[in-house]
């Protein structure tokens, strides 16, 4: 088996070309090392094009090899993509957060991956280049082929970075998850919410839930029903009920029953929306209007 550390993006693409389909990108390895390894690995984490978080006007660019720990600690993301920073801060354990990357989280395609839920809520798009030299952009939720299978073919494609619009005035977001222990536990359910408030009314809502389908799942019918409603406890309760109706969930002997998971979906939606609205109104945790 070979393990090669790419100097930069071009080097990584070249190594993939030389691998002729047998080489695969590794970007952190916290999931990959649990699986049967391919015969050649190309480590992307040293490529400067995949590192770093930067703001360009109203956009945020987040490198695919930014670690969860870096994302969680980034003031740019805490301010401009709060739900994403929060989600990254709850992945796995400190060790996993320091090694695992956002790009890896998305390409691993687990149905309840925290960072991916945050990215989809932010409306993030992935910039992907391939060995033939072409470059495309896709919404993160469209990168899922099936449970635990990505549309990104990491033997010939490289997810370079994510791009998303940062929170503007009157916008806020939050991520809520529920798990059986405080660390190293997959969530029974997670919800991310992004809202824009105008004069106390919900002008725009993005609500993402997981695990529901292979990809983090937007709930457009709930989003539409909430549009124009006041940011109030009554609205959040309604949202909870709507989410319980909207999500199809399964029970699992290892985690919880479907009934409880459906119940949690509503609770987490209420809490995520309430927190997002509080932030949109410029209030800190615990404060109320």
């Amino acid at each position, binding site marked *: 088996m070979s393990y090669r550390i790419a100097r930069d993006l071009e080097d990584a693409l070249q190594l993939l070309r030389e691998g002729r389909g047998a080489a695969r990108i590794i970007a952190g390895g916290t999931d990959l090392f649990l699986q049967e390894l391919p015969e050649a690995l190309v480590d992307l984490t040293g490529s400067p094009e995949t590192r770093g978080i930067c703001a360009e006007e109203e956009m945020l660019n987040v490198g695919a090899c930014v670690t969860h720990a870096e994302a969680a600690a980034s003031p740019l993301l805490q301010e401009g993509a709060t739900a994403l920073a929060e989600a990254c801060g709850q992945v796995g354990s400190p060790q996993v957060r320091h090694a695992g990357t956002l790009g890896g989280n998305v390409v691993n395609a687990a149905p309840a991956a925290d960072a991916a839920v945050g990215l989809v809520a932010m409306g993030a798009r992935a910039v992907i280049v391939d060995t033939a030299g072409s470059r495309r952009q896709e919404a993160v939720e469209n990168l899922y082929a099936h449970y635990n299978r990505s549309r990104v073919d990491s033997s010939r494609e490289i997810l370079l970075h994510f791009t998303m619009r940062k929170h503007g005035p009157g916008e806020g977001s939050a991520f809520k998850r*529920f798990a059986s*222990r*405080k*660390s190293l536990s997959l969530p029974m359910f997670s919800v991310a919410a992004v809202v824009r408030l105008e004069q106390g009314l919900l002008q725009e809502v993005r609500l993402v839930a997981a695990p529901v389908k292979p990809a983090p799942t937007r709930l457009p019918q709930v989003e539409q029903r909430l549009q124009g409603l006041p940011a109030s406890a009554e609205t959040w309760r309604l949202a909870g009920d709507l989410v319980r109706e909207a999500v199809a969930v399964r029970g699992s002997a290892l985690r919880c029953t479907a009934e*409880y998971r459906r*119940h949690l979906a509503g609770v987490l939606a209420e809490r995520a929306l309430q927190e997002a609205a509080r932030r949109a109104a410029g209030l800190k945790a615990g404060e109320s209007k």
Partner: protein
Amino acid sequence: MKVLPGDQATVSASAEEDFQSAEVWDKVSGKTVYGIDLRLPGMLAGKILRSPHAHARIKSIDITGALKLPGVRAVLTGADMKQKPYGIVVKDELPLAVDTVRYIGDEVAAVAAVDEETARRAVEAIRVEYEPLAAVYDPEEALQAGAPQLHGDFPGNLAWERLLERGDVAKGFAEADVVVEETFTTRAINHAYLEPISCIASVDSYQGLTLYTALQSPHIVRNLLAETLDLPPSRVRIVGPAMGGGFGGRVFGNLKVYLLSALLAMRTGAPVKIRLTREEEFIAGRPMVPVIFKVKMGVRRDGTITARESDILVDNGAYSAQGPWVAKTISERNDSLYRIPHIRTRVRLAYTNKVPTGQLRAYGNQTANYAYETLLDMAARKLGMDPLELRLKNCVGPGDITVHGLEIKSCNLAQCFKTAAAAVGWDQKKPGRGYGISGAIHANGSVVAHKDFRGAAAVVRLEEDGKFTIFTGEQDYGQGTHAVFAQIAARVLNVSPQDITVCSKDTAVIPYSQGAFAMRQTTIGGHAVRLAAEDLKQKMAGLAAELLGAEAELSGGVFRTPDGAELPLPEIAYHWRCRHNGLAMTGEGNYNPPGSAYDSTGYGNIAVTYSFAAHAAEVEVDPQTGALTIHKIVAVHDSGKIINYTASLGQVFGGVTQGLGYSCFEGYLFDGGQVLNPNFATYQLPTALDVPPIEPLFIDSEDPEGPFGAKGLGEIVQVPLLGALSCAVADAIGAPVTSLPMTAEKIYWAAAGKECLE
């Protein structure tokens, strides 16, 4: 600070009380060599083929493919077994299945090869033809007529049963004003020690067998292996490397691993190492038994308990291991915590086609604590009485002879309750929070398991350089036993504990011992060390007086006469050694605990003495999700005079954390006979972030049996926690959670008044 008697319990540590043996520093600095690390020259790797069926007849086994693989040295199957069935309590096991497999993981064949990879491929190359049989997984179904049968010798799948009656329960319930009853269930619990069991077996040219493996009770296991392998016990030697955790799981360890590595070594003539994988530890270890308690209790309006009736069903799994003993402790120990005049308990142990079970630290006393203490709070709620008051009204005290004849010597149980309540804020309860308190009694050693051999022995040797070595069969695998023994001898010999080394891990050298279980190390083993040190001191003083011509006092490693003549210890050692042609001066001690008039109904004193404890918990439940926040655990212990504070604190923090896992996180999940969570990703131990603030407190008592008044601590640290947490949760939500672990989902449904749809 100093520990004070009575209510003013605190924690303190002087330099001597804080002494740690060298092995502690080796562990924390990564120098320790564990069994799993060991290699011998020419060593082969052993692997086990396990049954994929919960219950099946073996029609044929074809090993030709495995034997053809280069590097394979031996393949053993049931056809090679000349052994008679063996067992710890019930003889129902063979090293390899002969014609029937009874659980997924049952040992079918064993391979020795030049390396693990070859052994693994050889195991895969063995072809077994099975005829699947109907299987039974539920202990209640197993006992019903027509259920699939596991063992011909145990018709109806009943491995063991007992009806225990004291007084007259009908009369007791007639006297009660309030009766409460409930059914509680618990899951199988894995010891989750960090080092999976590993064993290297090596044979000499005269078939002398040496096993390199870490055990809590090496001599008992040695005798069991010798009997099963038909070898004289003196030809079987167990040498213990450091143990990576025991928690009761290595009293007997994994007998299959020892037997199969021995049989493979005997077949090949080469050393053979078998090390279990983590998955094997889960599917074929000996986890703590799952239990169903149907319990009922009567109480008078003033809080006096009048009667208790229990029907306890213990799921044995496919083989018995320590099942009957665990079932016995589960069904009776808690009866002696309170003054209950009338008791009727039926306990049954049922075979099922699942992983065989065993015992975990505290032997099921903690499991029963969950059921009985939760029931006690149900009575308190029905009576409108403070749960603390109800406990103080009924708890046993010094001088009591309990309902089963246990003779209570030193006992600060009531003070433990009061101190725990005060420390958790029982009188200033915060709104929105739940509070629970629970007590425990736990035996120190057994004087009835082997009526003629109740005690322990030790030898202390004076070395040439004036230092000392203790030889003991009692094992230290993290509890601090060796530090405590060094401290005990040091106190007698008036030297520093650092001048004393403890040797305990080689059955060829150490005194015969029962080993480390039932909290017998400090109380019984330590008592023997004290006697041995006193014997040696007397011998040294005799020689010193002779050489100095006057009586001399020992201090700081030197004997001094009143007129100033001095004789340091190395000179005593030198003179003795020369006089005795190389023999070292030794002191011998053997502690013989008082016997017991234990009768055929199980009435009578069972232990040298008893430790006591009370734990209290302050919790909060998120009403929307059932999520539990534990704000505080107070753990108050009466373990006599504490000898080593740091080690004692370690026991409390570790035991409470393990009990927290049992209460709220852990447990085997099955689909039929298949373990669904055989790894640490899915079998969820609490992480560091899940451990709440723990406040340990000790209330000294002066025990007449333990050395310098000390009693045991290592098991009781887990016992009251389960009841305290369960009672606190019930207090927070107004209803008990009737099965473990108390997950957020179960708490949520219990609060909503619904059954959990597991």
